[in-house]
């Protein structure tokens, strides 16, 4: 799974900490998602989608080995 959370966050001009506070997780969780070390749950993905105003598919993509 690949994602463009970092890009979406930059568009909204948010730091990792600010984004984490908005969706109720820790800064380390955002860092792990951005670094593709952790795939978030559907709930978290939908919270991100709501915040970015885009469908989940726009910033989460399946990679070749998925």
């Amino acid at each position, binding site marked *: 799974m690949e994602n463009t959370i970092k890009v979406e966050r930059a568009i909204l001009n948010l730091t990792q900490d600010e984004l*984490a506070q908005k969706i*109720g*997780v*820790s800064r*380390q*969780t955002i*860092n*792990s998602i951005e670094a593709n*070390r*952790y795939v*978030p*749950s*559907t*709930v*978290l993905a*939908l*919270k991100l989608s*709501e915040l970015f105003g885009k469908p989940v598919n726009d910033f989460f993509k399946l990679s070749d080995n998925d």
Partner: protein
Amino acid sequence: MNTKNIEHCERNKLERFLNKIQLPNSFKAIGVGLVALSFIALTVIKFIDDEALWVRPFLKHAMLIGLLVISLSKEKIEDELIEVLRSKSYALAFIIGVLYTLFQPLANYIVDFILGKQDTPTEIGYVQVLLFMLLIQVGFFELLKRNR
């Protein structure tokens, strides 16, 4: 279906029960204090010749309770990644605990054989196994948290 409903579906009854039995983050310091105090007391009574019979088991149980309190204490920000890491640490502690219980008597026997002692293999006490498993759980959880 809104986000709340999806969240409700994703978390089953067992998960919600586990969330309820967790202690607030402030309990972690109490657990650490209890473990540290009982460890110091256990070290001190090693140098005392005539200790009461109940002292050592009491201190070991106090250490066990301290480790359990640390294990059940929530993090400052308790999110889904922390829950995943906690589950992984419990799974690892269980597997390593079973392996420890299986191989520790054998390791003792081999060491005794090499040293030329003819003692019969000793049984492992439940307190020893539980202490080991909780130590592994707490240790791995901290390690996984640092490397997340």
